[in-house]
């Protein structure tokens, strides 16, 4: 298992994430793992007891997790949102924009490449789940 990249300061959740089905069945879990086929909106009534949501990317080309992440952030979830699985350096910047603030890739990422990925885009065209100001807003500020 590669190193966890985490971009938040609060304490880590100390218990493993459970499946969405298990989470909905029990009341004490504070961490859940979303698979690509899961509906992130099922979690919305329970956001206040969640401190960690893992979104699994079994294959990097399956982009459902990007929507899952944004849906959670749009609903106000402010706990840790961690991308796990086939997470590659070239997807990091988009994941960050969709609200992920932690990454647990299957394969270790090169630190310089990670830094370059996050520094790549001087601007953004559209609004997403991060706090970056879109170009079209800046143009008319």
């Amino acid at each position, binding site marked *: 298992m590669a190193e966890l990249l985490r971009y938040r300061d609060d304490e880590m959740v100390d218990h493993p994430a459970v499946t969405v089905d298990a989470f909905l069945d029990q009341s004490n879990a504070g961490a859940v793992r979303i698979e690509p086929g899961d509906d992130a909106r099922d979690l919305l009534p329970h956001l206040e007891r969640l401190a960690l949501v893992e979104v699994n990317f079994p294959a990097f080309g399956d982009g459902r997790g990007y*929507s899952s992440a944004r849906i959670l952030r749009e609903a106000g979830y402010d706990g840790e949102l961690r991308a796990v699985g086939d997470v590659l350096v070239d997807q990091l910047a988009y994941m960050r924009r969709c609200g992920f603030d932690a990454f647990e890739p299957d394969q270790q990422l090169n630190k310089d490449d990670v830094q370059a990925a996050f520094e790549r885009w*001087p601007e953004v065209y559209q609004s997403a789940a991060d706090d970056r100001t879109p170009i079209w807003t800046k*143009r008319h500020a």
Partner: protein
Amino acid sequence: MYKYDQYDQAMVDARVEEFRDQARRRLEGKLTEDQFKPLRLMNGLYLQLHAYMLRVAIPYGTLDSRQMHALADIADKYDRGYGHFTTRQNIQYNWIKLEDAADILADLSKVEMHAIQTSGNCIRNISSDHFAGAAADEVVDPRPYAELLRQWSSFHPEFSYLPRKFKIAVIASDTDRAAMRLHDIGIQIVQNDAGDLGAAFYVGGGMGRTPMIAPCINAFVPLDRLVTYAEACLRVYNRYGRRDNKYKARIKILVHELGAEEYARQVEEEFAHMLDQGVEPPFAELERIRTFFEDPLFEADASSDIDRSDPDFALWVDRNTVAHKADGYASAVISLKPVGGIPGDATAEQMRLMADLAKDYSFDELRVMHTQNIVLPHVRKADLHALWTALDEAGLGAPNLDTVEDIIACPGLDYCSLANARSIPVAQRISERFAKTGKTETLGQLKLKISGCINACGHHHAGHIGILGVDRKGVENYQLLLGGSEAEDVSLAKITGPGFDEHGIVDAVETVTTVYEREREDGERFLDTYRRIGMNPFKEALYG
């Protein structure tokens, strides 16, 4: 024309450096081909039969002479002196080296061009009406809306790993010159009874192995909610589009399986939620973009007289020029379909000539048509003869717009790694046959479209006559289809019956035109006659 500001330029420049870094990591072995492939595709770089191929975006098909010159320079410097204009208004180069690709992107960036999202499972280059801004019948120029969507869709963080590719077309007239309803999303800018502009959304069209005509899912989306509505359409697709089978992953399958009503309901639900999310750009941005597409300064007293004493010129005027909204002007189509030529190919010299002619005669503007021709949109009628003379000398004066010689053909097995059969030689033999028999002009409008495989890049489903190349036990075989249309009378062509070999298909096309000549009534196009009399008379003539 739209011009980049410092933000647009910074984004394109960043993309060049990102790709340079990705290519370097690939060449150093830090990326596997499986990992690199989607990244290079999102920069238009394919690995084709003979080399890498680079597809360069020409947003909504519009470019100026400086850009066309840059495309010519790239053809000379990095390729083999030519390029291929495509059915999505882009240009492709066939002989690219991976080690040169980032430099090419850097050259493009200097003239406000790029190859961003010209392939991959993301939102592709937005296409539009090639007569936008010139057409007499448009409600407004559709390109500002296409440009707004270009910005929205560029580097979209949520929609870059969709189930499959995603193509959007925007038009603004009832005449459809962009195959709008054969796109994943087709948008028609319309005006309601109150005089307000809005966008009609048609979702789930496409060609490929399962051709579908997009149903209208919302007849009027207010323009200040355009981007939000598009975002809702995409989110529903990203979440629920099929990912288990790439052949069923396009949005047309989702819309078909859910039904248009249910898909529309889900979009509306998502849309209602997104209205609070700040997705929509400030309306001032649309107004800013519109200022780039204001009319050029047309001469108020431009003459409408055309000296038709040269019959060759008169034929070209009749065939290749189109009514313009300004008196004394016409849109002139430069055919890239010389008899026996390769549809859509242009040499670097031809590109430079077209660029210079655009500068001299068309307010420095060119358009790429989805039919693989080039338009000079705003030409004074008084200049048409000089324009035609220059084109004709360069082999660009073929008077065959929308005729049986104006064939759409994909690159086919001569270039494409997906193809099952060659398309180009079939197009060449057909145009030669009709030029020889002299029937081209008498057959009138006859749209013939050839694909070298089921993916339908040559739009065979939408041809009045369509040809589909298939592989029959290692031998090229060609199926004939009749009755398709990409226009406002959109329909999908039907297969006539058993296929033909390379020579037989040329005879078969001639046979069906003979049936048309025999059966046609006054003013009927081939398509009209087919629709009236049906398939059987054609089948009888073909298969006896």
